[in-house]
């Protein structure tokens, strides 16, 4: 392997040392807001060479000295064209004007770089505009739910925002917000995600063909970047819906130098219902639930070469119940107040420094902090004494990374860097304080686990002649946990062959390694799920994924992509049979088993990106299986989210400047669940132990039963109006328009005659929504 790495570097050096070249570099930004434009295209019509801007708007293109006919384009913006005579290295700050014509007919591209031309496969860029136009659940715009409409991605239970990508579990997704890992992306037990669309600039999901710069999870990378804040003038937007309101304000602190953005959201179901609860109980009992989140970012341009950002996210979910009671004990009046609460939340913070070292070299240094904390507890104040009991668990990360973009010439785009994360895991601590009930101040539970994860990578996006392009990379990672060291060398290869300008063939192979895992119960999606590190007994998870596909431009408005994938997963974990979150006995390692997984399938995505009607149709045919020595008697079984067929249709239609409408329809094969189909008597006696006559329920294999198919239609309409000081939008719609009773879970109950029957619980029938949003 060392030999190949050396050859790789030699190639890079040799390609880089070409004489008589000059470099044009700089940044590309929105002329009105100053927001940097990511993945904008830079193209020289004379040499037919091109490049793209990176995640911070930086670009560099090295061309032969002489005449250059430069075109800079970005979807939704007017192209910038300039002819220059290139004699020296040149630096530009290019400001693109939003395209008004395009806005009127709602032209929006889901990809900034044409899929046909890109080496990267299995990647989806979600325009925030699409996210906002589609109908939404309870009026709350949710990025993750839009991603669930893409092929290869599916949700877990009804209404939840969990992502199951190409047969992987929810812990196998690396979710990055401004480069910081987010460990729990759920609000309201998964019915909403933590990402506030108003504060988000770009969202991209990679399902396979992972570039070497990413690592640490097996199945996907969800890379989300917050807006930087308008550095020209103050703007804001907000919305009010049934359950939540939010507001975002952005603007310059110092014009064209320093900008900020602050965005906040809170639900208010608790505030609305508490007065009624108090009335009903005479002020004795009340409870509620709320969540909030806040995104904030400051962006400061020091000079042409240096720029710093400070971004943070904090969010909290809390379900609580309060009780006030008075009673008499031996003739004495005793008052007792108690509050029990279940709460969880994330904090992420990133301090970032962009440094343009030279016209071809860009550095990004980031220091990060991420925390996910869960707690459940009760505080009891009584005349008899006070008692407080609290159970907490969580994960805390401090990280640092430095990444370089080196663009020696248009045929190479090299990225390399290193990263380290210091994890602190708190697998669960119970603390009790007080004197009542005989409780002394006590703290028990699993001790904290401190680990160190690091990686280094190098990748090169290489153009090999006119038709071939490849992304070659290597990712090396290591993990220290309790004197145990694991490491992994992960090759990443993607290639593209351009058959003609409308058709390309692609292939990718990647290995991924994951050192942290989520201990989750298959029946409930609670925040009680625990993040834990690998141990000497629980080995790192590994996956190999191969994907092949084709990107086809059918017409100027229609793109088609077809992909097939095969993925293997090793050392994945599941709860052992009979294990329960509430059976708290035993070390967690005793409650899990390690095994293997496979998933394979095909995905088709047909996109219409221009015109009044835009949207996509996605279809996935897939299989996802698991095999554990200690589950299902060692036999293979379907993964619970194995879904043979998955269809999604998302469409928006712009009638005119004032009205647009959206539609989504999804269909999926039912989930695989374990359901008994027969029962028999244990009827066995043993002189020393057994004398049971239990009823044993017979399962035809783990996850051997399919729930009914899932399908749902959502409809929405947006009515826009320009007011004197702001633009406003009324959004109306319905979730589950034909009120399909989709299965949430199944159980055996009894009917009115007392017969045992199979019952299906469905969560959401037809639910209308209304939202008022404004922008100024």
């Amino acid at each position: 392997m060392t030999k190949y790495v050396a050859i790789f570097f030699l190639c890079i050096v040799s390609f880089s040392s070409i004489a008589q070249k000059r470099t044009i570099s700089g940044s590309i930004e929105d002329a009105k807001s100053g927001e940097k434009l990511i993945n904008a295209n830079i193209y020289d019509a004379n040499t037919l060479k091109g490049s793209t801007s990176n995640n911070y708007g930086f670009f560099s293109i090295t061309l032969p000295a002489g005449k250059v006919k430069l075109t800079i384009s970005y979807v939704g913006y007017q192209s910038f064209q300039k002819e220059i005579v290139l004699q020296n290295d040149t630096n530009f700050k290019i400001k693109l004007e939003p395209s008004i014509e395009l806005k009127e007919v709602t032209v929006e591209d889901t990809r900034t770089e044409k899929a046909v031309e890109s080496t990267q496969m299995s990647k989806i860029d979600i325009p925030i505009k699409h996210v906002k136009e589609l109908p939404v659940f309870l009026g709350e715009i949710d990025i993750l739910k839009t991603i669930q409409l893409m092929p290869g991605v599916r949700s877990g239970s009804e209404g939840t925002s969990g992502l199951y990508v190409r047969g992987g579990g929810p812990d196998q997704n690396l979710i990055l917000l401004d480069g910081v890992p987010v460990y729990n992306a759920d609000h309201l037990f998964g019915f909403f995600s933590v990402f506030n669309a108003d504060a988000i600039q770009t969202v991209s999901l990679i399902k396979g063909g992972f570039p070497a710069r990413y690592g640490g999870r097996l199945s996907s990378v969800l890379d989300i970047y917050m807006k930087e804040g308008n550095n020209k003038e103050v703007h804001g937007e907000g919305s009010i819906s049934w359950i939540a309101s939010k507001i975002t304000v952005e603007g310059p602190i110092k014009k064209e130098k320093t900008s900020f953005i602050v965005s906040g959201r809170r639900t208010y179901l608790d505030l609305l219902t508490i007065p009624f609860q108090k009335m009903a109980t005479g002020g004795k009992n009340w409870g509620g639930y709320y969540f909030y989140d806040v995104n904030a970012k400051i962006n400061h341009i020091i000079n042409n070469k240096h720029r710093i950002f400070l971004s943070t996210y904090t969010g909290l979910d809390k379900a609580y119940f309060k009780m006030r009671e008075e009673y008499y004990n031996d003739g004495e009046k005793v008052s007792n107040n108690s509050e029990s609460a279940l709460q969880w939340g994330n904090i992420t913070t990133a301090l970032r420094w962009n440094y343009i070292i030279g016209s071809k070299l860009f550095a990004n240094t980031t220091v990060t902090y991420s925390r996910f904390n869960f707690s459940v507890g009760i505080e009891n104040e009584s005349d008899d004494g006070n008692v407080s009991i609290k159970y907490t668990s969580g994960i805390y990360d401090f990280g640092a990374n430095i990444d370089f973009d080196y663009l020696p010439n248009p045929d190479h785009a090299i990225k390399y860097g290193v990263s380290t994360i210091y994890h602190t895991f708190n697998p669960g601590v119970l603390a009790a304080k007080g004197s009542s009930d005989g409780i002394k101040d006590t703290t028990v539970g699993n001790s904290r686990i401190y680990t160190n994860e690091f990686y280094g990578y190098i990748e090169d996006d290489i153009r090999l002649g006119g038709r071939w392009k490849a992304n070659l990379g290597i990712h090396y990672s290591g993990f220290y946990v309790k004197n145990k060291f694991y490491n992994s060398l992960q090759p990443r290869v993607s290639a593209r062959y351009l058959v003609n300008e409308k058709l390309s063939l692609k292939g990718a192979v990647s290995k991924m390694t994951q050192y942290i895992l989520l201990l989750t119960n298959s029946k409930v999606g609670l925040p009680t799920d625990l993040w834990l590190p690998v141990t000497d007994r629980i080995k790192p998870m590994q996956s190999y994924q191969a994907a092949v596909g084709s990107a086809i431009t059918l017409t100027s408005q229609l793109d088609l992509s077809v992909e097939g994938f095969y993925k293997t997963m090793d050392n994945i974990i599941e709860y052992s049979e009979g294990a329960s979150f509430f059976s708290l006995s035993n070390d967690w390692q005793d409650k899990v088993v390690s095994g293997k997984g496979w998933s394979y399938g095909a995905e088709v995505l047909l996109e219409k990106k221009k015109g009044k009607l835009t949207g996509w149709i996605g279809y996935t045919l897939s299989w996802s299986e698991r095999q554990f020595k200690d589950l299902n008697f060692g036999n293979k079984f379907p993964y619970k989210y194995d879904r043979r067929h998955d269809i999604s249709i998302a469409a928006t239609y712009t009638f005119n400047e004032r009205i647009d409408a959206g539609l989504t329809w999804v269909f999926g094969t039912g989930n695989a669940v374990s359901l008994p189909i027969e029962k028999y008597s244990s009827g066995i006696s043993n002189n020393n132990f057994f004398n049971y006559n239990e009823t044993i329920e017979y399962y035809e294999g783990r996850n051997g039963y399919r729930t009914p198919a899932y399908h749902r239609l959502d409809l929405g309409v947006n009515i826009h109006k320009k007011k004197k000081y702001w633009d406003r939008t009324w959004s109306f719609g319905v979730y589950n328009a034909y009120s399909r009773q989709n299965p949430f879970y199944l159980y055996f109950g009894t009917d009115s005659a007392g017969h045992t029957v199979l019952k299906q619980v469905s969560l959401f029938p037809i639910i209308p929504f209304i939202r008022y949003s404004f922008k100024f």
Partner: protein
Amino acid sequence: MKYRVVNITIRSCAILALMLTIIACEKIIELDVKDDTRKITLNGIVTPGKNLTVSLTRSLHILDNSEFKDITNGTVLLYIGNTLYDTLHHIGFGEYSGSKLIPVSNEQFQIKATAQGFKEIEATDYLPAAPQIMSIDTATEMYAWRGDGMDLNSREPEEMLRISIKINDPANTGDYYFLSINSISAGTMFNNGQINFFTDDPSIDDKSYEPGKPFSDDLFNGKQHELKIYIYKPWQSYISVNLMTISKSYYMYFKSFIRYTQNHGDPFAEPVMVYSNINGGFGIFAGSISLSDTMFVAGSYTPKPFPNK
């Protein structure tokens, strides 16, 4: 304490459940499975020196609320090697008994059963070698159970009776055991019931406070192994230490059946599939050999051996 935290969690989750219940709805749906005719359930354990008795019952569809029915018109044949050894006869209540069995260790035996209206079932197993107990010692010790990280009270050391059972495990074979402790009534010497015990022994997966544990020799194959278990001292009582060697099928059945009974009905627990080695039907047909030793535990907390120690 553990249950208090669990209750808080459940109560908090109930708030969500309440919110969901407002809009959730349920309906009866059809169980979409091929409904074959019912199957024979056969349960029987081969124990040397005893008449083999097996029971035959009829399985039920999962939605069937009726009682299990005994199969009284069955034909049950026992083969040792490939030779028909015995035809078991019905002795009432769906039980079939044969002549006294003197099987040889590790010899294969097979049972076949048919009845009108049912498909034939068949199972094959073997009788393991007898357990080799080298010694059983007891002592009074302070013991703190480490199994439950959430129970504050469980961390306090308590005075308990430690029972050490030293066994000699045969080499080159995978051996399976089942250990249980019983209380013996001093007056009648009848088995008075099972005694729960604690253990930290690594070969025993299930650390719960339960009365019987299956385990394998994976960690001590071919070696001597000392099992340490802890019980709350019964007052002035005899206890019986029972160690069985069991076939692999019986071990898998035991493990899964105990997990099943421990977690059945817990909506948060992963489902447990109980092992069965009956081809075409349900139940277990397996071999085991038991060895017991009874001793007297005095109120003075000084265990006295009885009657042979």
